């Protein structure tokens, strides 16, 4: 697989994914929304706002739609949501450590950064490097 082929395949995959997403979005808005969310019944102005999310997340939408159609509750438990708080703490300890390191590494890689060799005057250039006429 050539480097040039990867962008082409990624683009084609994105187009196909969006096309399926558009179909799922249309089906959900026409046949699913009123059944899975009582607050949507009789409310139409907000529906266009849902389209981008339905297209972007159509696999998740399809799974959730299926689960709700099988009679599972719309809402999760109100208690027992501490997992995300603990994940939050771990994420920020990680990011607060990793981001400064990555930033310093990127600065070290700069063309004009500290790792770049000092410029040389052309008359002092190594053998084989010719000055312009």
């Amino acid at each position: 697989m050539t480097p040039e082929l990867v962008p082409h395949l990624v683009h084609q995959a994105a187009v196909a994914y969006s096309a399926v997403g558009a179909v799922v979005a249309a089906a959900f808005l026409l046949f699913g929304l009123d059944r899975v969310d009582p607050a949507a019944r009789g409310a139409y102005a907000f529906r266009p706002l849902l389209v981008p999310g339905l297209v972007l997340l159509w696999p998740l939408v399809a799974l959730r739609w299926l689960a709700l159609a099988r009679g599972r509750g719309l809402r999760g438990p109100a208690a027992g949501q501490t997992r995300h708080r603990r994940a939050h703490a771990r994420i920020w300890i990680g990011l607060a450590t990793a981001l400064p390191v990555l930033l310093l590494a990127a600065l070290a890689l700069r063309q004009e950064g500290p790792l770049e060799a000092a410029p040389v005057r052309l008359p002092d250039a190594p053998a084989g490097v010719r000055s312009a006429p």
Partner: protein
Amino acid sequence: MSASHKPVGWNRTKVLYDAALLAAVAGYILAYLWVGPLIQRTSLPLDEQTLAMKAYGSCAFLMLTLVLCVGPLARLDRRFLPVLYNRRHFGVITFAVAAAHALHVLGWYFAYSHLPQTEALLAADTSYGQLRGFPFIPFGIAALLVLAVLAATSHDFWLSFLTPPVWKALHMGVYAAYALVVMHTALGALQSATNPALAVVVALSVALVGGLHVAAGARERDGAVARAAEVEPGWMATTTVDAIPEDGAVVVHLPDGEPVAVFRHGGRLSAVTNLCAHQNGPLGEGRVVDGCITCPWHGFQYRLEDGCAPPPFTERIATYRLKLDGRRVLLDPRPNAPGTRVEPVPVPGAAA
């Protein structure tokens, strides 16, 4: 909160918030476009399109920095709560500015490409085998995609459809977006920047965002919260009656980490989960308003006795049983199903 979905639940505060935010964004972009040409190096002038790209890109980066600072700032100092109130609009506008940056890039560099613009963008630099000059564009595309998902799922419908835990987990993707934007900037604009200003701004952003989150986390861990300890079978000692302010709460952490808010109102005590059903806001940091617990983040309300939002709203939170041992407040650590009625416990000697 809304019993029937609307496109945007406008109120005066939100209108003023959005107007101020949009004015600030417009002011920044215009200042960048007008002042930029005056202070740039005459030996290497930037064209208008490149200047616009940098204006939108830097604006989006600064907005993302600010939007990430709002959460920890509000936890460290309640005066920042009004900024948190409409944070989702801040996030959506941040995505719009980032998308404007991307559209300027596509329109300037790839307008006449024989390939589709997004494919041309991906194919512009494929030198993944080297550290110096490592492609920075994919980091920006990935960050924009994450921001697009967050903006597209910002409506309350998504919260109820996906359930709060899933929605919250999805929206924690903003941290990944920030890390991607830092890498996009560090491997892109910072590589060719000839003055240290941009590097200083990015470093300050990283220090500010990381420092505030770590500080807020430490405050939450070591802050003024009680820890429950079992004193008799099925009951845990939490706090004392006198420590709970009228119309306020004390937050108690159970041994499994679950936070519970013990409220005092009208001389009676009630306990509910500390996590709002909307976005897991800290209910115990809120107040009792009109006889209802009111979340400090977005104003969602719940009745003290059963954890139900007043009609016509339908949100419900878990309640807990309480009893008194002298002035000590004992709590049954097993949560009741959301919306379960628990009779509030009268405080001896307190005026109702």
